[in-house]
């Protein structure tokens, strides 16, 4: 198979996998939580059914809303799709893999966050603005930790390109259990929980006014736009989980051009991402949501962990 065609196929596989696997991942986490709490829970495919139901509904916009309201879900979906497409998740040869710099991925995700905040503000309701403000506060606290953790990862491979980091880690498996990696994993774990709005930071299942963050931003959305919003968010969750899985446990990622390696890569990615989701779901079950004013403590802890990761990375290099 020629190289450009292979890259296109890899990118398509990754996008399709995230678009179908993302909602399934959300369903899986809900199912694990339900089982751990002694309930039966909705089937894992429930988020996909919800998307189908929402897609059939008519488009409704709040009276005073502007073009930002329908634009926000599209921007979230588009930015996440690009980020999924160029990341080395299934194979180290996706389309535009050479530009999959980790800063590019982070800022593609942030573009989605900014669009989400603007969309929340757009209808002019109190809850939307409150949710946007909280989401931006959490984002501003999580971002330094994320960037410093990324620097820690790029010290060992002397590159901030994701493809290079994954290939270098595959070539040096002893890096994975170094203290720098483990600390960066801890920091990224906290950041991912904050960015995906899981329980110690935000409760995705709440509709209580005082505690809502993400749910407050989407109050004004309905129908196909809500479906696109949910799909984009689900893809974002699956991207963050699979990035953690791939950066820290890169085994199974295809490096060659063969179809078999691609199939193995897909299988490995699904298993690894499901394991990360399982871990997050168990953390959610075991912990209570933090008070909003205690969040800076958690995220400052993540920041210190990432600084520790950088320093130990420099020390042990």
């Amino acid at each position, binding site marked *: 198979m020629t190289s450009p065609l292979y890259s296109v196929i890899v990118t398509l596989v990754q996008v399709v996998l995230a678009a179908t696997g993302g909602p399934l991942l959300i369903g899986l986490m809900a199912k694990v939580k339900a089982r751990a709490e002694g309930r039966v829970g909705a089937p894992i495919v429930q988020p996909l059914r919800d998307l189908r139901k929402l897609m059939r509904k008519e488009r409704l916009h709040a009276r005073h809303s502007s073009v930002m309201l329908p634009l926000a879900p599209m921007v979230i979906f588009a930015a996440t799709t690009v980020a999924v497409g160029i990341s080395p998740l299934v194979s180290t040869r996706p389309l535009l893999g050479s530009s999959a710099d980790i800063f590019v991925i982070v800022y593609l995700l942030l573009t989605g966050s900014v669009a989400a905040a603007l969309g929340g503000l757009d209808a002019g309701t109190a809850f939307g603005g409150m949710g946007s403000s909280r989401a931006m506060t959490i984002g501003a606290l999580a971002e330094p930790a994320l960037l410093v953790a990324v620097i820690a990862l790029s010290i060992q491979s002397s590159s901030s390109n994701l493809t290079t980091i994954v290939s270098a880690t595959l070539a040096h498996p002893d890096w994975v259990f170094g203290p720098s990696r483990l600390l960066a994993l801890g920091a990224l774990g906290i950041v991912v929980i904050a960015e995906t709005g899981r329980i110690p930071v935000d409760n995705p299942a709440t509709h209580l006014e005082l505690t809502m963050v993400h749910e407050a931003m989407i109050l004004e959305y309905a129908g196909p736009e809500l479906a696109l919003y949910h799909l984009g968010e689900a893809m974002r969750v699956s991207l963050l989980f699979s990035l953690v899985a791939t950066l820290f446990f890169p085994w199974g990622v295809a490096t060659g051009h063969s179809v078999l390696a691609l199939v193995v890569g897909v299988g490995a990615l699904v298993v690894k991402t499901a394991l990360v989701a399982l871990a997050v779901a168990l953390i959610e079950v075991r912990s209570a949501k933090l008070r909003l004013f205690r969040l800076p*403590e958690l995220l400052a802890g993540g920041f210190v962990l990432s600084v520790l990761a950088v320093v130990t990375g420099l020390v042990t290099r």
Partner: protein
Amino acid sequence: MNTTYVAVLELAAGAVLVSAVMTLWRRNVRSIISMLSLQGIALATAAIVLGWHEHDVALFVTGGLVLVVKGLVVPGVLRRVARLDPRSRESRPLVNVPASLVIAALLIVLSYVVTSRITSLAPSDATRLVPIGVATVLVGYFMLVTRRRAVSKIVGLILVDNGIALVTFLLTSGVPLIVELGSSLDVLLVVVVLQFLMVSMVHHSDTEQLTEMKALHD
């Protein structure tokens, strides 16, 4: 063999520093003491691995001693002390937790910048890790200065001691056994004395917050 030695040593040194930072992070006195216990175990692991690698029986024995004293006995004594004052489980530090974490990050970077010039004089697998020990000492001093509760201050003191011990293990493969024995018993004695002091403090003034004590009594 050599890479395993380096990996275990790096992990142990990393665990010493992480548990030091965790003591600043957690509010609950019980979990702070658990972190201290973890740090003692990590320190002992570092000593034992170094002793194994350099075929140094004295260092090996020191590691065992550290494991018993700093991993088990001192945290055990501190847990008994913490049980004295069940009302105030949470400590109210002078510098709030997010700010102290950021300051800890600065201290860690500072120790790396300062110490890396010293360690570059004799680079080896062990001496490269010295900045981690120095950072632990600095974090310990910071805790000693900014925490109000007596238990937290004792924890800060032990952090300083653990950091110094890590540096000596890494730089000189440990001081002679008799000196290490002396200093370990010294720390244990200090903790026991402070325990008695605190029991009488709680008995007299119903608190162990040092800032609440304004005047001297007979």
